[in-house]
């Protein structure tokens, strides 16, 4: 059996697609797990998107702790005899999958971007060496635990005729010695770089926070309106919130047009935007790595280039 879990609904739906495909090939079924309060509406939604069964593990846990969630999934696994566990790869999911693997002494691969059966064994691919290579990994014993990032698979189309069972069970879990004191939403705007079709990004080449308006102005005329950035701008300088951050530990994007301005092109950044259809680079250093990953580039001073580029795009688009 294939088990699917994420604390994020959309990610669960995406995982159910791959999960049901693998399950069919194995002649087994796919079960979605809900942890916490019983939620029949959510369970039905999972069923209409491919789940053959929804397992609701009822608990009184109020906040996510990997220790306690791993304890619950360990019991669900024992109960269902699942062989493959797909976990949504947000930070909670990675923590949970890794801890569960430790508890079960099982194989685990994080951030898989491709999964298939080869010689009847689960085989997965993940990007390694900062986006320089893909490792092909194969499990040689069960259970197999993998995490899958968002947007790798699309959800199955909703099918209200698809049927499935809803099973509910109460679980007592060993409580963790840790305690969540405070949860604070990070300051974010309405930015969603992962869904953007056009992104203009800024990096260390900018001298001050105010200058980022040059990027927003270009993004505006390109009708993309989405501003991205490299690690230093979000993580170190904090000129933009982390929902703008594109890269290996930030967001992974695949817009139609990606414009990298004043970004040197560290492989960690490339790993976040390499799937863009067209990549444009603007940098004053002709040797900058970013040009190797770009379709079009201009070598020069971004402070001179950006206003001119914005004007000319405006003219061209009328």
């Amino acid at each position, binding site marked *: 059996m294939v088990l699917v879990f994420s604390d994020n609904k959309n990610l669960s739906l995406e995982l159910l697609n791959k999960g049901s495909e693998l399950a069919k090939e194995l002649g087994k079924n796919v079960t979605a797990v809900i942890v916490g309060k019983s939620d029949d509406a959510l369970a039905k939604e999972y069923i209409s998107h491919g789940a053959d069964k929804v397992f609701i593990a009822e608990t009184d846990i109020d906040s996510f702790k990997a220790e306690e969630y791993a304890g619950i999934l360990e019991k669900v696994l024992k109960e269902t005899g699942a062989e493959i566990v797909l976990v949504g790869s947000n930070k909670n999911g990675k923590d949970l999958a890794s801890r569960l693997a430790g508890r079960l002494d099982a*194989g685990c691969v994080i951030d898989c971007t491709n999964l298939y059966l080869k010689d009847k064994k689960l085989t997965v691919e993940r990007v390694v060496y900062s986006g320089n290579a*893909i490792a092909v990994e*194969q499990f040689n014993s069960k259970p197999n635990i993998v995490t899958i990032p968002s947007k790798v698979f699309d959800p199955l189309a909703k099918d209200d005729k698809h049927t499935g069972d809803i099973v509910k069970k109460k679980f007592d879990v060993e409580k963790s010695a840790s305690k969540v004191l405070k949860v604070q939403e*990070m300051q974010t705007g309405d930015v969603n770089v992962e869904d953007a079709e056009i992104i203009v990004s800024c990096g260390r080449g900018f001298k001050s926070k105010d200058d980022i308006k040059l990027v927003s102005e270009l993004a505006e005329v390109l009708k993309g309106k989405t501003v991205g950035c490299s690690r230093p701008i979000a993580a170190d300088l904090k000129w933009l919130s982390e929902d703008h951050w594109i890269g*290996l530990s930030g967001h992974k994007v695949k817009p139609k047009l990606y414009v990298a301005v004043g970004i040197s092109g560290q492989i960690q950044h490339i790993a976040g935007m390499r799937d863009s259809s067209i990549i444009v680079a603007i940098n004053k250093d002709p040797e900058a790595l970013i040009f190797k990953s770009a379709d*079009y580039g201009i070598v020069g001073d971004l402070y001179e280039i950006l206003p001119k*580029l914005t004007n000319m795009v405006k003219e061209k688009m009328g």
Partner: protein
Amino acid sequence: MNIIVCAKQVVDVSEMKVDPNTKKPILQGVPQKISDIDKNAIEEAIKIKDKHGGKITVVTVGSSDAKEGIKELLAMGADEGVLISSPDKCDYRVVSSLLAEAIKKIGEYDIVLCGEASIDMFSGQVGPRLAGLLNMPQITYAQNVNAEKDKTVAVRNMGDKSVTTESSYPVLITVTKEINEPRLPSLMQILGAANKPINEWSADSLTKDLEPKVETLELKGIPMERKNIVYKDDVDDSVKKLVDSLAKEGVLR
């Protein structure tokens, strides 16, 4: 306060080249170093030791080359190193089991510190996996740690949320790159580190069960076909050419 820091010796990915024909990474001859975020873990350990006293032990699973890396961490301020010889076939299960056995052998610990992930593989699996094996609470992605006498409070960066978590000891903490600025050891500290012990333990002295559960079949290159058209002369001319090209690509609409 006794602190164990898990550190990994990795290839320096920023020095890595890709074979132009096969697009596969060239691993041979790439310089090795201690993974960047593990240095943040050491730095945080030193800060905690400065406050509470105690001992910092660094544990590494790797080849004998890793000794140089451990020496650097000893120079920064760790007290003792443990180098576990890496078996030929290694996956996260094997490495985590070895670290767990080594930590049990060291015996006394209040905090186990790791980097959030290593810069070569970037899984972030070892920290929470180890916490599971040792059945201890885990605080991951810490961007701020306040270790008090009988408990620690940490602020975790969970992307869209910031989560403040408290735990008693022992606790496993993984730290982010933003938590601190790792110090550069002085010449005196580097010389002094030569006298600090590095214990070498063989893998099978720690556990006989070293079968990987996951096997790497292949390392594939990533084809990156880009046009690489770069305009570098007159700015007005370059901007015009770029806009024309983008119009032809159909992205200006």
